[in-house]
């Protein structure tokens, strides 16, 4: 997981099959953790990335997004329990109490996320 943060998924050189990012934003903040890899990120990877993103935020910014991170993690768990999700997919979890667009976004640009191990193995041998 640690090597993923060095990947710029927008670079043409890094157009892997499974790409996306989670992002914490508002009108004064933009932090993200991206992935670009040959296999779909697992739920554990997704939760690790959420934690990595939390680690990039100040206590104040994290506090403003506590519920939104919980929603993101619930979404990823629900997706994983439902067989995963395929791209393109977008989910935005916004703090409606703060009128500056404080939110956490999930963006699945290509490939899949949270697929079961069996499906990953099948996909691996098909590609």
């Amino acid at each position: 997981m640690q090597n993923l943060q060095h990947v710029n998924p927008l670079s043409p050189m890094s157009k892997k099959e499974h790409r996306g990012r989670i992002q914490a934003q508002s009108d004064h903040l933009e932090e993200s953790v991206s992935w670009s890899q040959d296999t779909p990120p697992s739920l554990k990877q997704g939760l690790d990335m959420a934690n990595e993103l939390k680690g990039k935020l100040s206590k104040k910014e994290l506090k403003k997004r506590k519920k939104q991170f919980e929603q993101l993690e619930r979404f990823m768990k629900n997706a994983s329990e439902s067989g995963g999700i395929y791209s393109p997919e977008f989910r935005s979890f916004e703090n409606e109490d703060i009128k500056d667009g404080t939110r956490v976004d999930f963006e699945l640009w290509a490939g899949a996320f949270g697929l079961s191990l069996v499906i990953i193995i099948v996909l691996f041998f098909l590609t």
Partner: protein
Amino acid sequence: MKHLYKNFLQDQRVYNLNEAFYKRLVEAVTGSEAFHFFRSRYANGQKIYDGHIFSTRYEGRILQVIQREPDSDYPVLRARHKKWDGQYDMLVLTLELSEEIKLLLKKIVKAWLVEKTAFEEISSMLPGSPMSNYENSNPAPVVNDDGE
């Protein structure tokens, strides 16, 4: 404030009707059949009923509508701009659907998808209430400290 499809998050039938409303609106504006750009389904086929109610891609531009449960007595329609996968311009609208917003929504969807209006101009079309809008246009300087 007359809200439409009020209990869409509690009733899947209402949600589906509400979704069809956006599909018709986009089709009326673009003159072509509108399809969801984002899947809004899990891999097992189960639909996600969470307010990310409609999305579409038209001529290189993406529109995502996120509908909130109505609880405001003023028009709520906010917009933000994203770059999707580094290539597509994406407009994310967060709204409470009401008769007032319905009228404005058609103009905004047309401006974004058909007339290729710049996001800054879209912003200027939004309701002016400070409670229903915020500035959130382009990448902003990162402020991520604990200073009060």
